[in-house]
């Protein structure tokens, strides 16, 4: 390494580790390397290159467990390798790797038979985010009833509350992960799905929402008052009935996702 500064060496080492299977190693980095054991300079660099792919593949596998299950080992490892070599990590934390994996699946479209795969990956990423969110102190149900419901009320929700929507029933697919794929009946993937994910007592919960419920919660989460959320939802769902609204507020109450209530005069 006579001619390489520390900076040159580190940049060259990273390029070497991220190179494709068939790409040549730049001769400059091989000069003077003393390989460990009975490795050659080239195979000693290969230890680090392979280690990088394995480590990031493991990180993807941990987050996208259901995508792995659907893909099978061989295809998942192939996809992961392709992703790892084209999407370097910029996070200091390995578990923060893979945010763009759903978009990657959308772009490469690896399995036309499973069009829901990118959405399944999005759901798995969201689930992980919710898992790491803090558990909030929710509003006691008594307080909720005491305040009563009026149009001017705005809610503050716990930080773990997130909505998810897909044209496919990805939550049902996700729940099957880890089971024997071949023994399962063919599920109907094509049912649109609206979900709310949240934490309660340190556990992540997922609940199905109807279209009006999703619309109401989406507006309330964005800071709209009840009146504003209802007005918006009625425009989108003209057949909204009172019992649906009543059930929705009971759902809010029971799930404990509300952090605070503000009455706007």
């Amino acid at each position, binding site marked *: 390494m006579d001619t390489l500064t520390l900076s040159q060496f580190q940049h060259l080492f990273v390029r070497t580790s991220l190179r494709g299977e068939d790409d040549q190693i730049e001769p400059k980095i091989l000069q*003077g390397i003393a390989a460990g054991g*009975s*490795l050659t300079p080239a195979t000693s660099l290969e230890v680090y290159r392979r280690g990088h792919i394995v480590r990031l593949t493991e990180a993807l596998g941990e987050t996208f467990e259901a995508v792995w299950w659907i893909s099978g080992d061989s295809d998942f490892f192939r996809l992961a390798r392709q992703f790892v070599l084209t999407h370097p990590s910029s996070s200091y934390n390995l578990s*923060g790797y893979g945010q763009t994996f759903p978009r990657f699946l959308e772009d490469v479209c690896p399995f036309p038979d499973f069009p829901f795969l990118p959405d399944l990956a999005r759901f798995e990423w969201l689930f992980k985010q919710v*898992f790491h969110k803090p558990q909030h102190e929710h509003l006691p149900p008594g307080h909720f009833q005491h305040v009563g419901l009026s149009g001017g009320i705005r809610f503050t929700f716990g930080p773990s509350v997130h909505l998810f929507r897909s044209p496919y029933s990805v939550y049902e697919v996700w729940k099957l992960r880890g089971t024997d794929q071949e023994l399962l009946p063919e599920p109907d993937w094509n049912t649109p799905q609206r979900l709310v994910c949240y934490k309660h007592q340190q556990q992540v919960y997922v609940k199905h929402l109807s279209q009006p419920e999703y619309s109401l919660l989406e507006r309330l989460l964005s800071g709209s008052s009840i009146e504003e959320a209802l007005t918006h939802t009625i425009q989108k769902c003209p057949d909204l009935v009172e019992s649906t609204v009543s059930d929705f507020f009971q759902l809010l109450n029971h799930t404990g996702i509300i952090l605070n209530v503000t009455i706007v005069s």
Partner: protein
Amino acid sequence: MATGPPNIGVGLRPTHYPYLEPRPPTKVSWFEAISENYMDTQGRPLTMLELIRQDYPVALHGVSLSIASVEGLRPPYLRNLRNLIERIDPFIVSDHLCWTGLQEQNLHDLLPIPFTNEALDLIVTHVDQIQTFLRRPILLENVSTYLQLPCADYTEWDFLRAVADRSGCQILLDLNNLYVNASNHRFDPYLFLEGIPTHLIGQVHLAGYTDMGTHLFDTHAKPIYPAVWDLFSTLIARAPEVPVLIEWDEDIPEFPQLEEEAQKAAHIWTKHHGHTHAQPIPTPVCSNLS
């Protein structure tokens, strides 16, 4: 609650959360947690760490500091680490003497550094920045390597010692890594051991490597090998108060088997020093900090 021998700890791993959650008595004195597993979460991992902290001293051990990176330190990383330190109040904060990649191309590996004056100057500067920011000393661990870089100004042990001498940090001496490197790079491991004064050693790691046929690989997937126990015996004879940690990261056994490894370390300790009262966990002192 701990009922174990002095200063023998084990790594806290998620696999063992269900076992540890009811707070059973254990044969270990402290736990070491991987800092990054708790820095970016406010979920169950952090709850578990805080639960463990109620009963045991905890050391925080990082893998992402990348202290030898030519691109410098990552301020968000240091801020998150400091927040975790304030929350957990660890008795040791450590990371590795290595770099992990570039900021936009992080390889998430403990990568080898050339033992040169250029690298030494950079690392000493970074240690100073870190210790000033964290307002506490850190320990740096020797890493396993599979290649050595040319134009070295130092042997590995002289380099490690120079980093500690010049920066005021302490050394986390991983005896498994020491043995792996001695085997891979064909040097006498006892020469390394003798090259590090015990007052610079703030903690010891013990783990198992995997023999790949062509080289030894640091996997933490096996029980500790006899040759590593021998190194430990030699070291602990002259450094009885140093905290010792059993690491196991792949094919992780049930917690009681991990305790057995800790018991073996305790047995070796006792062979040298007899049955004595429990040693307090020492707090590393950093001479360069005001």
